[in-house]
């Protein structure tokens, strides 16, 4: 069924009785060409691009819970391409271009809104660093504008420009940055993959990976054994456990990142604003809720919920930056399990086992990468070669020393 404005009106007049499920609910077959472990944003987009770009359709996506029930449904939905290092730059630039065509590509409203993203800076040194980053973004072909204090004031008059601890010197404006509707991205890719013949199998947890003579032959699941020629592990915060089934130890430590949303308010924050010095960023959803977050809770955790010290810290940072939000009531907070790598950059690579591939290490920046991650992982699994914009996301870079430490904070998982 093709979605359109006309269809919405026609169905509305007809009592909305004509809508059909957006994807099938098949039982697993005994064998597939390719199995994707993990039905989140990255897994679903990988399956979609395997089918769309490479014509492979004998594929199953195995999801232990429900589609999009992990981090793709728990994030703060920022979409941007403001990276500095070669290796990251071209990848996120490619991803943003895919975002810009995503709705017509998927025939699905993912509510992608390029409302502009502003990273604030608070010192001369930070201004220089942002100017350099902006130039790198422009050289990559993306957009960046350096705003002075008055430039920021024109766009964000509600900030506290009088605060003395972190006086606002200006900001780096990335006009093509913005946000999207997180669930819709997962659903759109799921529907697109399903329509091309991919089996999306929910409530099917992988419990083992079968390997014979250094080659993957299939997986064991809670719904029986399934054979496959190729297997992709795309499970974000759970990467360590699934990789351990194949005898691998990853450069990944799982951490909690909390996020918060307030009651719905009238439009008040028109952009995505990040206040790095206070570890705070915020945007407003189309429903009106202020969506904001801060830094990790800092200790390794799988709890999918955080602790109060970070809640307090985030609220303090928000009040420091924009006191006007003080009377908004927080509706809820939650945590996601982040697969943190020691250099803050992801991994899209083959493993030492033939036919076994891994896509992980998205830290807390995985949402904006969903289209390009799937694009590049599909390219890798179909052709055996890394895609040119993801060729530095190698698993062995931690041994060879070719790190992609975007923030320059060193080899400590929780500092990125």
């Amino acid at each position: 069924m093709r979605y359109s404005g006309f269809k919405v009106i026609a169905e509305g007049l007809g009592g909305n009785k004509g809508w059909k499920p957006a994807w099938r609910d098949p039982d697993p077959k005994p064998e597939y060409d390719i199995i994707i472990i993990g039905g989140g944003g990255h897994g679903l987009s990988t399956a979609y691009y395997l089918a769309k770009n490479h014509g492979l359709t004998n594929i199953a996506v195995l999801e232990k819970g429900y589609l999009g029930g992990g981090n793709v449904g728990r994030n703060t939905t920022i979409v941007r391409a403001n990276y500095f290092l070669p290796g990251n730059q071209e990848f996120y630039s490619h991803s943003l271009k895919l975002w810009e065509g995503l709705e017509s590509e998927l025939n699905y409203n993912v509510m992608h809104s390029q409302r502009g993203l502003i990273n604030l800076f608070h010192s001369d040194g930070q201004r220089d660093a942002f100017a350099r980053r902006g130039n790198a973004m422009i050289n990559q072909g993306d957009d960046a504008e350096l705003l002075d204090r008055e430039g920021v004031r024109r766009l964000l008059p509600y900030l506290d420009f009088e605060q003395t601890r972190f006086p606002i010197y200006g900001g780096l404006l990335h006009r093509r940055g913005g946000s999207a509707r997180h669930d819709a991205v997962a659903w759109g890719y799921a529907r697109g993959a399903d329509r091309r013949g991919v089996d999306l199998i929910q409530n099917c947890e992988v419990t083992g990976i079968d390997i014979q003579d250094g080659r993957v032959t299939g997986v064991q699941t809670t719904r029986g054994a399934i054979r496959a020629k190729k297997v992709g592990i795309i499970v974000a915060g759970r990467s360590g456990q699934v990789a351990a089934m194949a005898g691998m130890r990853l450069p990944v430590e799982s951490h909690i990142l909390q996020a918060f949303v307030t009651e719905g308010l009238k439009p008040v924050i028109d952009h995505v604003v990040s206040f790095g010095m206070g570890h705070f960023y915020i945007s407003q959803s189309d429903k009106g809720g202020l969506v904001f977050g801060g830094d990790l809770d800092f200790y390794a955790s799988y709890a999918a919920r955080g602790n109060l010290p970070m809640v307090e810290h985030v609220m303090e940072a928000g009040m420091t930056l924009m006191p006007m939000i003080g009377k908004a009531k927080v509706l809820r907070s939650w945590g996601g399990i982040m697969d943190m790598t020691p250099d803050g950059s992801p991994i899209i690579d083959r493993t030492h086992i033939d036919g076994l591939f891994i896509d992980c290490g998205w830290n807390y920046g995985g949402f904006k990468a969903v289209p390009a991650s799937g694009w590049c992982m599909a390219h890798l699994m179909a052709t055996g070669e890394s895609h040119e914009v993801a060729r530095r996301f190698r698993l062995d870079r931690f041994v060879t020393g070719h790190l992609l430490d975007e923030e320059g904070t060193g080899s400590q998982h929780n500092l990125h």
Partner: protein
Amino acid sequence: MRITCPLCGTRDRREFYYYGDAVYADRPDAGAVPEAWNDYLHLRDNPAGETRDLWYHEMGCSSWIEVTRNTVTHAILGTRLVSERNSRRDKFVYQEGDLREIKPQATKPEPKGTEE
């Protein structure tokens, strides 16, 4: 979350700085092969369940503490000073009696294993 410092007793998590997995206490020799450094700096067991990691009592006695805790429930299961680890090579294999039992110092007993 409250952590029992072997010297100061049970304290708020905010007094402590988290460094990372207890593997950080087993620094390879300077001439070790790159794989050994990769193992030390980057690779992690990353368990969902019991783990051991290093915390620094920054706003207390400044001791480095090895904390055994559960990454799913956030329960603190035991603590000891890093200086009391058996050796640099014991590789945090848990053995019975390995952990020093910490008795709560306050008159109000702490419920064990329910802290968050």
